[in-house]
């Protein structure tokens, strides 16, 4: 019992919270970037531009079907061979963005597909160009329907940032490892803290998403 109290000393807690902050920072940056890139890829895949859409679709499928861990490794250890050596945090954000944007592209494509055809036809008949109709009529409706799927993808993104501990990203998981690495009695308390912190962030996000979804519906 004493180890539990010692494990949660202010120094350790502050160290964990610093790690949590890195996790949140990396997640937010990756969510924003992969949302933009994913929307772009999803629209290309939906629009059926000759050859381009097929090639983009195939590349999306390739990346989606690889383990994220492999992509993280490749970005951090592989890219320097091409003369581009990102720091740990940018490398993680880059790897997460590459992987998650392909996951989001699929969600966004099927979201666009779920908007009735009449919306596009009506918008075009009213004189909007294809892209005006896409950005002003189709996408806003599509995003609204996609909120639950998007948020569960964001939640898995937050959880997946823990994989970057392997390239020594100083995130929540890594900081916990440092703490229990110094004292084996802290292993269980640290795992409990990890579970609680990740749970609060991820579950909180899904509760928020449900609330927004209900307000918009």
């Amino acid at each position, binding site marked *: 019992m004493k180890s539990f109290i010692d494990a949660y000393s202010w120094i350790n807690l502050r160290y964990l919270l610093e790690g949590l902050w890195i996790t949140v920072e990396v997640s937010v940056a990756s969510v924003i970037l992969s949302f933009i890139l994913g929307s772009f890829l999803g629209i290309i895949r939906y629009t059926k531009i000759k050859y381009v859409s097929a090639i983009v679709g195939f590349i999306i499928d*390739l990346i989606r079907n690889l383990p994220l861990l492999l992509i993280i490794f490749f970005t951090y250890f592989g890219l320097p061979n091409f003369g581009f050596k990102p720091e740990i945090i940018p490398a993680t954000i880059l790897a997460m963005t590459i992987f998650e944007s392909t996951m989001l592209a699929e969600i966004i494509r099927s979201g666009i597909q779920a908007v009735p055809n009449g919306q596009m036809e009506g918008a075009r008949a009213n004189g909007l160009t294809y892209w005006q109709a896409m950005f002003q009529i189709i996408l806003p409706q599509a995003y609204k329907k996609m909120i639950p799927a998007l948020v569960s993808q964001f*939640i898995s993104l937050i*959880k997946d940032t823990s994989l970057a501990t392997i390239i020594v990203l100083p995130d929540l998981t890594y900081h916990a490892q440092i703490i229990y690495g110094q004292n084996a009695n802290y292993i269980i308390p640290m795992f409990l803290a990890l579970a609680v912190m990740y749970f609060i962030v991820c579950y909180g996000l899904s509760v928020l998403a449900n609330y927004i979804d209900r307000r918009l519906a």
Partner: protein
Amino acid sequence: MITILSDHWQELLTGLGWTLLSSVLALIFSLIIGSLFAIMEVTESKVARTIARIYIEIFRNIPLLVITSFFYLVIPMYVVKVNGFTAGTIGLTIYTSAFIAETVRSGIQSVDPGQMEGARANGLTFWQAMSNVILPQAFRLVIPPLGNQFVNLVKNSSVLAFVAGFDLMYQANNIASITFDTINSYMVVGVLYLIITMPISYYMRYLEKRLA
């Protein structure tokens, strides 16, 4: 890529074997556990529903790596000595079972409630009706999402590399550190992963289209 493949094909093949074994084992066990929690979620008992809800929400919202390293570090301290492969597979099973429970539950709920009422009216008990009438229909509906879960499992099994689970990812790191040829080592392993995951995910997409 060719030299890596010809020099290290034995390690790669063992890695592929362990990856597949751990994914298949985790799929079987998480199907069993996930279905049990899914059934608990649709029973009348409030206690059972709450327990299932708590289990699912907890393990859906904690990273797989945290669950896996918990089993790798804590089980040997108090229970029994396990190797990385076992700990990794247990972690994978528990993590995936929470997702499968959600999938199966949505399958059960999309079966017409009249089926259950009809089965009960014909004298079947709840469990008989569930296993003979509802689940067979539910599973047919959830085959595509379950197939996608298997693809996720194969990809997620790469966390075994963290706990020395001898899987493909672990071998990739070894080969990369022996040959110093990181790009080609990871490319070879990437191709091996794709050989497993791509056909399954394309087939599931085809099934999804046919079912829709």
